[in-house]
């Protein structure tokens, strides 16, 4: 862990570091033997006390930490449970920040509506994509599995500026994916709709009129950056 000083820069670094190790708060004994030492929650409190703007804490502390983990995951240097623990630690910090953002939502990279298509119950892949997109700053609206096109369209209506992700794992639900894209395009012709899942390919994505395909979460992050650049 970074040397503890009071400089806001160092506090932010400590937040990022604690997110990475998954140390949510002082009570936690992860990493082993760290019980009693400050975690994400405590460092965020300190940052707030030092008047570090909440946007900065979010971006340069919490998100920065999770992004390091996301990159390590993409490089096969950490496992999912380690990402999950980091995500949980990040949430501990987010909970502290929420009140400071007053009424309006937490600032985010954008809203991402994600679901597994109709007839398909596979969701492990979808959930991973959601988790890592969240780490990249996206606000996630997970509409679950077995999503009829109407359900997707309804969710998009609620979040008109969103980007959309669809997952399919069965050859026989790839057709449902095509139908979902068509249904979305009917109401939202220019919507960014990205697709994925084991049987899905770049060519198939083109065929059904999706905006893009990504083989894994980190490629999905890059793809969205290309298709719908941050404001």
């Amino acid at each position, binding site marked *: 862990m970074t040397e503890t000083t009071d400089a806001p820069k160092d506090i932010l670094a400590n937040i990022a570091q604690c997110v990475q190790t998954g140390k949510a708060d002082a009570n936690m004994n992860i990493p082993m033997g760290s019980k009693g030492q400050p975690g994400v929650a405590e460092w965020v409190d300190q940052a707030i006390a030092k008047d570090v703007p909440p946007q900065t804490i979010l971006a340069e502390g919490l998100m920065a930490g999770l992004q390091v983990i996301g990159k390590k995951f993409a490089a096969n240097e950490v496992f999912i449970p380690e990402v999950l623990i980091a995500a949980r630690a990040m949430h501990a910090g987010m909970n502290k920040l929420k009140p400071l953002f007053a009424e309006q939502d937490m600032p985010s990279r954008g809203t991402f509506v994600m679901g597994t298509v109709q007839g398909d*119950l596979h969701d492990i892949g979808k*959930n*991973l994509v959601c988790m890592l997109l969240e780490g990249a700053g996206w606000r996630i609206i997970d509409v679950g599995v077995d999503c009829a096109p109407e359900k997707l369209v309804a969710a998009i209506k609620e979040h008109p500026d969103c980007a959309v992700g669809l997952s399919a794992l069965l*050859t026989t639900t790839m057709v449902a994916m095509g139908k979902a894209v068509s249904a979305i395009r009917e109401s939202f012709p220019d919507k960014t709709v990205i697709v994925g899942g084991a049987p899905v390919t770049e060519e198939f994505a083109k065929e059904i009129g999706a905006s893009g395909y990504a083989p894994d979460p980190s490629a999905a992050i890059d793809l969205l950056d290309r298709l719908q650049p941050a404001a």
Partner: protein
Amino acid sequence: MAVRHYTNLTIDRSEDLIFGRAPHPVTCGHDLTIGAGTVYPEINFTLPPMEVTESTMPAVLDQYQKIIDGVCQRAVDLQVPGLVVEFELLPPMTIEPAWGESIVALLRRALDGYHDKHGLKIALRATPTDVRDGERPVRRRSGRYWEAMRDSFRRCVSAGADMLSIESTGGKEASDDALLQCDLQTMLVALGVLGARDMAFLWDEIGEACKGTQCLSAGDTACGFANTAMVLADRKMIPKVFAAVVRTLSTVRTLVAHEHGAVGPTKDCAYEGPYIKAITGVPISLEGKSAACAHLSSIGNIAAATADLWSNESVQNVRLLGGDAPVVSLEQLAYDCRLMNIAAADGADAARMLRDWLVRSDAALDPQAYVLTPDNVIRVARAIVEADGAFARSRETIAVTLDILREGATDGPLHLNDREKHWLDMLQMQLEMIPTDEEAAIKAACLGTKPDLVPGAYEIDDDKL
């Protein structure tokens, strides 16, 4: 239905655990005896991208007709000594049981034709889908999805299936998250408590559907648990040592099918098959390198070491340069089987030599392979039969598996990198924290936080959560 308790191993010497031979062979279909000395291919296939609806059913049937003709013709050309065809229903074919039934009937006719014309020894396995989680929370023992499954069992049998199997998912409401978190405690409860209880219920029903018919109550697989773990480990998302533990642990659950009457052959994707074979003596189906079309794995050869049927798991009907993918798969399986059978024709020692090469080629490179060496299979299987009840067995299985892995990595040939070793320690710690008492373990698994879980579906009172 009478429940059989296994307290001893049926195969208790690793020398006797070998491909092609099971203490309790089964005969079914057209003159096919499985486990009596010959390894047969088990061919599987599925649809290319297309919908399954009322209006596409003619096209669906057409696909299956073309697949089965291609596969059977090639089997005849290659002079296979026998063949098992598996038809794994897709969800809509189970939800509308008449659709699955019509496909079983089509396949049955084709098989009969090839048997009559060419004397092909052949049998048909039907595997309805466990669609109970189509509605959530998952009721498991009631509701339209469960009724559809029961109907599907009966229709598959009456339409001519020779073996009935399923990839059941009882306990999945708790396991999906647990897998991603590498949470051993919850995995134990998901498989050793929830899964085991659901299996008892389900396999009594399957036994009923098969009673008095030509159809064998065959076997299950913990695919939705252990193979999910395998795929995740293969993609480097979870540690391989964890996947190895989930694999052995899953034996306890799958064994329940056999306690409730299943006679084998077990399902191909059940890599817990070798343990089941050692305990029960039933013939097993396995898949390895020639199932790479369905999933990559680190047990491509070792899986064959104890197989009585050798499968490709599944391949969609796409055209490859050499022909349609199911035909290509059949050919690969046929040659794999030829090699095993010709070695066995030279006697038991020769067969064992080939077996040991299959084992040694993979065992040191991956913990999931290492737990499948015949010695380790016997050791795990023995730990299972020596414990009493699914919960205790599960705990013992984890303990012995961790021992095997640690010994293998310390004094043995098993290569583990530092991250894997770290996780081996983590899992040991987790095991030590799991209560030894079933009720306490259930409580500790926080099942109340699982949104899809209905405790009553597993005979758990709400206040025991």
